[in-house]
Structures are given as structure tokens and as C-alpha cells.
């Protein structure tokens, strides 16, 4: 066991990436992701890798396209507006089946938003902001240690699926210092056989996302889809914290999940039957875990630092079987322990009074009420 070191999540990402065999970093500075770029600038040249600050995020992601085409494990980092600019290149990389790792340390939006921590990049990262039928694998660390661990895993997944993989963290998780231990063994960089590396062996290779023939493109898209289905079978990860027997299941990722853990402990101490389900892979989404928990749970509560983006996937996974409540803060504000305890208490009270309903149940109630009112009206005619 190695000694743990106090380190920012952002600094841990680069070290873990280099141990994972990453030898290329192309990026453009933006708060709150800049420490990643700066750490890469310091370390990449020392390990025989390439660091380059690009002229824009558009150029940066296309440099990833180039380095990845050449068979190098490569990464970048950015935040909100920068990720928006990268979407073109991400779509191309997914189409051309090029692996890469992108760390999004998200901030406030839309537009320039602010530098505060938000989780409002969920849609553009998890749903894919570029054109075409593609997916990106998205990992959501919630500690400095996970920033290191999930970075290492991200490189494995990127190569396994030949697809871009996101690390989606909020500013808190990126900037926070915690003890970190680098457990991953150093990986020797290798040139994959599909790469275009400027060698005799790789001369016949072609990297492209262009398929002019309709049938050829359709076949290509089916191949991509098969990879995503495989990822949905093999790569789903989530953490269930006191959730197995919980009536109230809190759902959140990143810094929110840390706060929800504290809330879970406090609420359990107060005798409320609460648990936490924390998705670690946002795509593929832990749908099966929701299916399992919804058998016992009476209500799911999604807490997000956005206008409600994760909640859409939760609603799909819960599939109308249970009510899904929502609590959010935005603009760089963080849900506080107190407001979440108040929410949990309110829900516990409603549960005790049997006043929590799914949309379908509410619809039935409303319809019955309307019918009753109509009967009442007719009775008086």
C-alpha cells in the first residue's frame, strides 16, 4: 500500500492519465478545469509525451482526433462553453471510432454563465451534443480518489470501445484536495493495429467518419450501436448507500452525492428510512439498479445543480412506477444539508400520511374527481 497524498482532483487526473499510458494532452484553459491543463503542461514533456495549448477548443479536440488517429492515448479538459465547442470533434471521433478521454469540470451556464459549480453539462455530455447517432461513455467521480481511479478506467474503456469517454465532474470535485493513492500500474504505450502511425505496417489504414453509401453508413451505425449495447451490458457502475431497504431513495452524482451521503446518515439517525443511489456511469445509466430499488422504495428524490437533466434518465429508469421528486440549486449555489434534511422530513411526513403519488396515480385521482364532480352536477340538474 502506497502512502496517500493530499492532492486536487484536477491534479490527480493527469497523473493517473500518464500512468494509464496517456502521452498526449491538447487543451485550452478555462476555469475550473485549468489545473488539469497546467499539470499536463508540467508533466507531459517529462514523460516523453506531448503537451500543446491549442488556439481554441475546436482545434484542441481536432488535435485529439489527430493524436488518437496516430495511436496515442490522448486527453483534454475543459468546461461548459469549451465542451460546446468540442462537440463537432467529439461527433467525428465517435464516428471515426477514435478513443480519447475528455475531462469536463463543469461550471455555470448557459453561455458564459459563471465560474460557480453547476451540473448543467449533463445533457450536452451524456446525451451527446454533436450530430449523429452516437454515444459517449460518461463517468462521474465524486472525490479526488475517484478522479484518479476513473481516469485510469476511462482510458481502458476508450480503447476497448474505440470511443470518446468523458469524465464529468463539477468544480468542487475538480478543485477539492483529498488524500489520493495511485493504485493503477503504469501502462506501456502501444500502437493499436488500426492506427495511422506513419509506418509500413499502418500504411493501408484509413481513419474516417465518412460513409457515402447509404447501406454502408447504416451498417456502420449498427456497429456503433452494438458497441453501446455492449457497454450497457458490461460497464454500468453505481453506488448504493443504505438504499437497499430505503423507502426514500436520494439520487445524485458528483459533489451532490457527497452532501446526500451526509444527509442519509443524519436522516437515518433521525429514524427516517433513507438511502442514496449514486450513478457512477451516467452513460451507460444504471437503469437495472433503479428497477431493483423501486420494488421497495416509495419515492425517488433527484438532487441536481441544474434545471433537471439527470432527472430525465431517472424518470425513464423508474418508468412511472414510483413518484420522482426533484430538488435543485443553480448558478453556483449548492444544496445545503439543512434544506435537504427539510426536504427529507417533508417527504417522510407525506409518506406517513400516504400522500405521495406517481403521475399516473395523480391522473387517476384527477379523473375520478372530475367524474364525481360531473355526477354531482348532473344530480342537481
Amino acid at each position: 500500500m502506497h502512502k496517500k497524498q493530499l492532492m486536487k482532483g484536477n491534479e490527480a487526473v493527469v497523473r493517473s492519465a500518464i500512468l494509464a499510458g496517456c502521452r498526449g494532452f491538447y487543451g485550452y484553459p478555462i476555469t475550473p478545469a485549468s489545473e488539469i491543463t497546467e499539470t499536463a503542461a508540467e508533466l507531459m514533456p517529462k514523460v516523453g509525451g506531448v503537451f500543446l495549448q491549442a488556439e481554441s477548443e475546436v482545434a484542441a479536440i481536432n488535435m485529439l482526433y489527430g493524436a488518437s488517429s496516430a495511436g496515442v492515448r490522448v486527453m483534454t479538459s475543459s468546461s461548459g462553453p469549451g465542451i460546446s465547442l468540442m462537440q463537432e470533434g467529439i461527433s467525428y471521433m465517435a464516428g471515426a471510432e477514435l478513443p480519447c478521454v475528455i475531462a469536463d469540470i463543469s461550471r455555470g451556464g448557459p453561455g458564459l454563465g459563471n465560474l460557480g459549480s453547476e451540473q448543467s453539462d449533463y445533457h450536452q455530455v451524456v446525451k451527446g451534443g454533436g450530430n449523429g447517432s452516437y454515444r459517449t461513455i460518461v463517468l462521474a467521480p465524486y472525490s479526488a480518489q475517484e478522479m484518479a481511479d476513473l481516469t485510469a478506467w476511462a482510458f481502458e474503456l476508450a480503447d476497448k470501445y474505440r470511443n470518446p469517454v468523458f469524465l464529468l465532474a463539477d468544480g468542487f470535485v475538480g478543485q477539492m484536495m483529498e488524500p489520493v493513492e495511485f493504485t493503477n500500474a503504469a501502462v506501456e504505450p502501444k500502437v493499436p493495429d488500426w492506427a495511422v502511425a506513419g509506418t509500413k505496417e499502418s500504411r493501408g489504414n484509413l481513419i474516417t467518419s465518412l460513409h457515402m453509401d447509404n447501406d454502408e453508413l447504416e451498417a456502420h451505425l449498427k456497429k456503433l450501436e452494438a458497441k453501446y449495447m455492449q457497454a450497457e451490458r458490461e460497464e454500468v457502475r453505481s453506488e448504493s448507500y443504505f438504499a437497499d431497504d430505503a423507502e426514500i431513495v436520494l439520487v445524485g452524482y458528483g459533489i451532490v452525492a457527497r452532501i446526500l451521503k451526509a444527509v442519509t446518515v443524519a436522516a437515518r439517525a433521525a429514524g427516517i428510512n433513507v438511502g442514496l443511489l449514486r450513478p457512477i456511469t451516467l452513460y451507460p445509466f444504471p437503469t437495472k439498479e433503479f428497477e431493483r430499488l423501486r420494488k421497495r422504495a416509495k419515492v425517488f428524490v433527484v438532487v441536481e445543480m441544474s434545471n433537471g437533466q439527470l432527472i430525465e434518465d431517472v424518470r425513464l429508469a423508474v418508468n412511472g412506477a414510483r413518484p420522482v421528486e426533484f430538488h435543485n440549486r443553480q448558478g453556483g449555489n449548492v444544496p445545503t444539508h439543512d434544506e435537504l434534511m427539510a426536504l427529507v422530513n417533508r417527504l417522510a411526513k407525506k409518506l406517513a400520511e400516504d400522500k405521495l403519488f406517481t403521475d399516473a396515480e395523480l391522473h387517476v385521482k384527477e379523473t375520478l374527481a372530475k367524474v364525481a364532480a360531473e355526477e354531482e352536477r348532473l344530480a342537481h340538474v
Partner: protein
Amino acid sequence: MSSVIIPEYEVTHSRPNAFNKSYERKGELKHATHYCPGCGHGNVHKMLAEAIDQLGIQDRTILISPVGCSVFAYYYFDVGNVQAAHGRAPAVATAMKRSRPESILISYQGDGDLTAIGAAEILHAANRGENITVIFVNNGIYSMTGGQVAPTTLVGQKSTTTPNGRSIENEGYPMRVCELLATLEAPVYIERVGLGDNKQIAQATRAIKRAVENQSKGLGFSLVEVLSPCPTIWKMSAVDAQHWVRGVMEKTYPLGVYCDKTKDAHPRTPHAPAPPLSELRKIMGITSEEISAPEVKQEIAADKKKVDLHVRVAGFGGQGVLLLGEILAEAGLDAGMQVSWLPSYGPEMRSGTSNCHVRISSESIDSPLVALPDVLIAMNEPSLRKFDASVRPGGWVLYNGDTFPGDCERKDVNVLALPFTNIALEIGDARAANMVMLGALLEIADALPQASIDAALNRLVKSKKWIELDERALQMGRELYHEACVGV
């Protein structure tokens, strides 16, 4: 009577090796290109393929196909092929070349690709002096999409989006790429050539070979702009189109060498060799220190007492707020506890207040956010006003000031208000005020051994002078706490 004519020169009809024998990727008509009759791309492709043959670099060559008519360049060239997004070929080539310095990177681009959507990428690749070769085929129009205006379209020239001809009021003037890039320091070779007649074609052949050869010698950025006919979109015969290149285009785009620094250019310094994998951890400052008995320290800590300390530190940027928190967290880690340190960040780091959350716990830490601090260290009044109300009842406020503002007083918290900055100044430097306050906090918390504080200082403070000063400041803080709080 017949006689055998002995030719003065050898006529060959062979195809360069750098071309595929047949164009399998094309799907149909495997022995013809997709280019229109009279199009300049065919000529330029052949010049490039011959240059690759003559320089003996086929295995090392990587061709970047752009978006535009030459999007299918990879149908024809038997080299490594990569197709890039519109305008981004120079960025793609940059990273490929830097990743594989032995390879030969050709960024083949049209004028819409290079001068419009890809203006930033070409400018910066040139400005960095990337050791790549750019073949820039300029026909003054967007051909593949059916003839829309390009930055290179001539004044008055009609296109589907300038139906009355390009006007300088609406579209500006034709963009002269060679002239523009030649103002930069880094490029070593920039030439504009044409396909207007055989003489021009011969010069173009030489220029393209030179541009590739420069790269193989490691000299740096080379670009050849080729004025190229597009009979289809220009709605001309192949012959008229060629004449138009020579007679009309050339007036706006004069041929010639715009930059040639090849004589003075030096090959780039090669990469330092990669260190062995076993060295990586050391290079990156990852400690390889093994913990001989990981449980021991934790047991001592647990033995001593259960610790769960929530601290908020706030003050002006420059007062050492973040460092104070970091030393506290580092010491906690050294003492075998769980720790977290969370800074505020953003514009408030430049001016105004800065603050951080520190947690030290003998148990695992759930939330790193400190909502209810046990101790607030307020290094200035705005920080006190911002966080005073959040302190847990029974907790402590350490305030850097002569007098505690009356309206901030709370009956349910303990206060230690002293002019810590002046005290620090007296012992050597006002900037050590954070350490004086940390000293007082350590006495209040009584959770961390001195050895751990020393270890944290040695790890985080680089100069010996400052370590000594900080040690004095910490001691002063401890004493001040006891003086002020005796009997409290």
C-alpha cells in the same frame, strides 16, 4: 518509305507508386478519379504522388483529406490516410506530426476549407512552425457544394451566393493566404504556383516536391498554394478554365515565392527519450513511500479520541487563507486521519475574499462542504460578516482585528479577536498572521500532534526561512490562545 522515329525523351504512362493500383475504396469505376474533366486536383494529386515516390517516403506519409472536392483524396493515395473535419486538417496534422515525428504529414486543403472555416487552424499551425506540408488548392469557389462564394472568390465573380458578383462592400476582398502567412516568423517556405500552362505546371511540380522535402529534412512549415481550374463550376471548357487561371486569377494572386527561409532553418530538437515506466511515479511526484504499518497511526488517532473538525478559513486573497487550510489538512493526513480541503475559486480569488473548507475526521468524510464550522478563522471583517452566523453554537470565531464588531457578537460562540497581522509583523512578517491564527486553532482543536504540523510545514513551505518564521508564529498563536482564554 517508312522510318523509325527515335524519341528525344522517354514517354511514360506509369502511375506513381504512391497511388493505389486501383481505387477500391471508391466503390465503382475503380480506374478513374471522381474529379471532373479539367479539374486541377488530378494534376496536384499526381505531383504529390510523384514527390512521395521520388523522396522515398511512402511508408512514412500520412495524408489528411479535407472537406471539399478532395474529401476523397484517400481513395487514391496508397499512404496512411486520415479524413478530417472541415478546416481542421492543420490541427489534426499538428498532433499527428508531434505524436509521430518520423512521419510525413500532408495537409491537403481547398480554399473554402483553409481560408474560411479553417482560417484559425492554418494560421496557428503556420505560426507554431509545425513541421508539416500544406497543399492549398485555390479555385476561388466552393465547388463541392455547388459554387458558393469563398473568401478567395474574385471581385465581381458570380457564385450561387453572390448572384450579382462578389462585391467588396458585402464580401470584402479576396483573401491572399501566401501574403498573409508570409508575415509570420515561423514558416520556412511559402510559394504560390498555378496550373495555367505547362510552364506553370512544371514550376508547381517543383514547388510541391520542395514543400514535402523540407519536411523530410525537418525544416518546418511549408505551404504551396496552387491556383487551380474548376471548369464545372466556372462553367467553362477545360481549356478556357486553364486560360482563366493564367489570365485572370493570377492578377489577384501573383505567383511566386513569398517566403524561403530553408537555408537558415534548423531541424527541430527531437523529443527527449521517454523515461522507463519505473521512473514515472518519481517524475510525477507520486510518493512511492510504503506504509509499513498503516493501521498503527490510525489506531493511535482513534485511541486518542474521536475527531470530527469542521473549519472555515476566510480572508483577503494574499493573506494565506488557502495555505492555512492546506497545512491543516496535510497535518491531519499525516496524523492518519481523513481530510478534505475545498477552496472557493473564481474571480473572488483575484480580489476580495477567498475562503476554504477543511474537514479533519477520524471517520470517513461524507461532505467536504463545511456548512456549520466548529471554528471560523476570519482574517478580515468582510469574512467575519459573511460567515459569522454559520458557526455552530458552542464553536469558535478567531478574528483578525483589534475590536470585534459589536453587531457580529453572538452569545453562543467563543471569540478570540486579536490584531494577528500586527502580532505577526512584530515577530518578523505580517504575512505570517495566518500561522499565528493556525496556532490558536490547533490549541482549540487539540487534535493534531506537533510532529504532524512539522511534517505538513516541511512539505508545503519551500523556504527554510519561512518554515522557521511559521514555527515561531504557530507557537505565538498557541500562547496567545492560552493567555487570552485562561479561565474561559
